[in-house]
């Protein structure tokens, strides 16, 4: 089935107490599609990634990955909430890079990249190190393998985090405001790595970003979130060139004014 979406959010809702963060979200993402998620803070855009990574439970609906339910599992033709084993199995297809890097501070760049391949995938140390060396080279950090995170710049740390996530060979990569915590002069090196990933690897990518320029150039589709819903979406050219929704226009006006 080639038309099966890589990710499908089916009527997914998320609430914190009385606050509805996401309201019956419907979103399909095709294989290898690059989707940029933008919107004001509190619009639920980061929650979309966090739910897909299973960092947040959902309150309603079902999330599907490659036609299989992630948040649920099938029993006698019915969907019941997934158990840990099922979640771990499906979650293996997904990798995530965080705003604050979240590298393991007590491990070198290399150790960060081989931890999961060895303990989760059962790879040998040698094999895992070869894979990690390749990835660290791809992100331009072959010289920094034995450095600890504290000895690396923010941009370098974020590139290690990207290599670490890729070492698990995910099919879907999630980027959560990955350049927001970086000094402006370090943003470019991280975006460059993401650009390369997009062109050289078969990856479905979802990114929450404030970098409108990057979204415009890199994404196949831009989704604008506002108040827990997708307000407007479309190819970047149309989205940025000729936004339809009033709120989109206001938002774009505000961020382009600022940036």
């Amino acid at each position: 089935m080639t038309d099966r979406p890589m990710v499908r959010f089916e009527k997914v809702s998320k609430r914190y107490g009385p606050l509805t963060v996401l309201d019956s979200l419907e979103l399909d993402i095709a294989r290898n599609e690059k989707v940029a998620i933008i919107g004001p803070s509190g619009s639920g855009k980061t929650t979309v990634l966090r739910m897909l990574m299973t960092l947040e439970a959902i309150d309603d609906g079902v999330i599907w990955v490659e036609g299989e339910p992630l948040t649920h599992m099938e029993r006698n033709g019915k969907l019941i909430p997934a158990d840990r084993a099922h979640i771990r199995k499906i979650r293996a297809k997904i990798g995530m890079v965080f705003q604050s890097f979240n590298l393991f501070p007590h491990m070198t760049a290399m150790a960060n990249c081989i931890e999961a391949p060895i303990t989760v995938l059962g790879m040998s140390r040698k094999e895992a190190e070869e894979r990690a060396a390749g990835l660290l080279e791809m992100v331009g950090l072959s010289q920094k393998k034995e450095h600890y995170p504290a000895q690396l710049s923010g941009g370098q740390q974020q590139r290690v985090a990207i290599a670490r996530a890729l070492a698990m060979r995910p099919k879907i990569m999630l980027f959560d405001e990955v350049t927001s915590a970086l000094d402006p002069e370090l943003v470019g090196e991280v975006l460059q790595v993401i650009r390369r990933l997009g062109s050289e690897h078969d990856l479905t990518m979802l990114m929450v970003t404030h970098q409108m320029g990057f979204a415009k150039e890199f994404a196949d589709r831009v989704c604008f979130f506002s108040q827990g819903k997708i307000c407007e979406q479309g190819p970047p050219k149309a989205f940025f060139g000729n936004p339809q929704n009033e709120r989109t226009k206001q938002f774009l006006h505000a961020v382009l004014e600022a940036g």
Partner: protein
Amino acid sequence: MWDWAFTFEILPTLAKAAVISIEATLLGFVLAATLGLVLALTRIAVPWTAWPISVLVELIRSTPLLIQIFFLYFVFPSFGVTLDAFTAGVLALGIHYAAYCSEVYRAGFDNIPRGQWEASIALNLSPWTTFRDIIIPQAIPPIVPALGNYLVALFKETPLLSAIAVLELMQTAKIIGSETFRYTEPITMVGLFFLAMSLVSAAFIRAAERLLNRRPAR
């Protein structure tokens, strides 16, 4: 007042007793450190246990160690569990300090940023691997001084075991005193021994701390 000849005469007996005190300390602390870690991990891994564990920890911390020692030694036999004095003493020390240690571990775990847990989930690490490779190596070094203080505190409480006639230092000194009617030398020697050992352990703890903190800070 002070009889050197007598001091040298009782020294071998006291030295033998010191070995018992040190054994009780080490066994008790290994138990305390292990059980404390198990308690702290359990309350994170199995959320519903958090409340019962809090109650248990509070119960243990709010009752005197001496009563717990008596309980294990004198009351347990009526439930059909008879322990020899040394075992009962070590268990009581271990359980008592496990309650304190579990709170120290908990503080250590609470200080791990949420992002570390989230990165572990995103990499699909199992809960066990997350604890072993990510959380514990980061949580332990900062709490070594606190754990070390409890080691010294536990050591200084071993004389309580004299109450159930464990032949540790205090009990031995008391026996020497009652047999010879000389208390000055044995009790003073015991005091000096505790002083010396406490200073030595404090130095060890500082060394361990330095060793653990050699890695670059985050």
